[in-house]
């Protein structure tokens, strides 16, 4: 999981702050390389370590960086695959929230050795949810907050998402059809290669 987060962080920083910023972060983190490979393994704890150097270099809090990166993953056209895989979770934002618990299982179908975080969803009332996220990576919860915010937009739902409560993310859906969501076709058009 560290590998995926590091690769995403690399993409986010380069696209948002430019290549020199990423180079500076890698140097500060004492890495002798700048390119993370999503399919390789890195020592655990590395994602949090590099993120703390990113926070210092960019002058932002680690939480903000992880959150923005989560949003970037869903909204950046270069990562359309991420958005699509998440949209398979359900036909509404509430459906999608319910699918979070299944996410590690789904991911394992494609990549058996991917140690995705575990999510537990508790539906408090019709429109209130509490999500607990268990991961060895400290930034994981913030990444999820960023992704949830972007996914709510994607479904056209108006939500309050609060990630500040210890260990919990609280989601309140104010209007599930606030705006027109982005279009989602179950299959991609056939490639004409």
């Amino acid at each position, binding site marked *: 999981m560290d590998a995926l987060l590091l690769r995403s962080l690399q993409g986010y920083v380069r696209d948002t702050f430019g290549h020199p910023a990423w180079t500076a972060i890698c140097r500060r983190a004492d890495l002798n390389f700048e390119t993370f490979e999503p*399919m390789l393994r890195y020592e655990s704890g590395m994602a949090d370590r590099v993120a703390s150097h990113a926070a210092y270099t960019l002058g932002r809090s680690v939480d903000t960086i992880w959150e923005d990166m989560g949003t970037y993953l869903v909204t950046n056209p270069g990562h359309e*695959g991420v958005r*699509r895989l998440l949209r*398979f979770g359900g036909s509404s934002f509430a459906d999608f929230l319910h699918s979070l618990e299944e996410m590690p299982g789904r991911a394992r179908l*494609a*990549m058996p050795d991917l140690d995705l975080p575990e999510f537990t969803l508790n539906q408090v009332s019709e429109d209130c949810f509490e999500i607990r996220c268990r991961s060895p990576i400290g930034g994981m919860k913030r990444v999820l907050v960023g992704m949830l915010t972007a996914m709510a937009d994607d479904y056209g739902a108006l939500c309050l998402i609060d990630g500040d409560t210890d260990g919990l993310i609280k989601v309140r859906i104010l209007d599930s059809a606030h705006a027109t969501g982005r279009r989602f076709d*179950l*299959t991609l*058009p*056939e490639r004409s290669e």
Partner: protein
Amino acid sequence: MMGDTTGLQINIGVAGLVRFMPMHLLLDGGGRVISAGPTLMRVLAGQEVTGARFEDLFEVRAPGSVVLVTDLVQRAGQRFRLVPLHNRRVGLRGLGLRLAGTDMVLLNLSFGIDLIAAVREYALTDADFAATDLAMEMLYLAEANAAVTNELRGLNLRLEGARMLAEEEALTDPLTGLRNRRAADLVLERLCASRAAFGVMHLDLDYFKAVNDTLGHAAGDFVLENVGRILREQVRAEDCAARIGGDEFVIILPGRTDAQVLQTIATRIIARVSEPMEFEGSPCKISGSIGIVRSSDLTAPDAAQVLVASDRALYAAKHAGRGQAVLLSGECG
């Protein structure tokens, strides 16, 4: 466990059928359609479905030689495969049953392996599948798999690039940019193994030690870089110029075995190397001696023999007075 269900009648109703089996087909005793699920209706769109005969809508692909739905359900328990007659690109599979106490036949269909094509063809959505259907999981898996494969392909390409770069570095002398000893050995081995004709020049710099001793290593490096540039200019793309030791160079020239031509090239290299160079205001005066051998003068040579022979020719050149090129022929390595 099932309790005693003998005589139990279950009335699911058409609305229930629609919800539980969005791809069902209910036929009367004559094989005409009474009702079809909404997703199946999308497959059959553009046709009059209600009242149509089964065999006018579908062709049975398996089991073989079955046309009518009555034959189909007689093979109860067997699953069957169909194709819609008006669109044969999307296959269907299913199971059929004669409903107890009636002459009605109920078929339940699914897309099977043609799911992705069907979703694309009929622009199906989540709502077109029963909640129990694994269609969404299959679509998800197909897409996740494609994403993983794509990542792996990218990783392979990047690793291949890094491997080529590392290989190139492993064969290059970093100071002069020429090939190194290992590269020269590989080229010689390849040429010897294929019994190709080639010429080899062994160049040793004269007075290099004096430059190093009096002006320092930086001056020595400067001279070596210069010689590297001269050699690159003097050889063809298919030749291999390598630095194989401190001030020792080897030039391998595939296809060149003409004594006159080799002698001319060697003389030109010596002349260029002997031109005055200046390092930070101090002149560095060097020259070079070259020993030349040709594959045609050696019987079945290997790389080591070629280098021994070229070394002997170099020794002869040094012996003849510096700044000379000597071709040693008629002597078998």
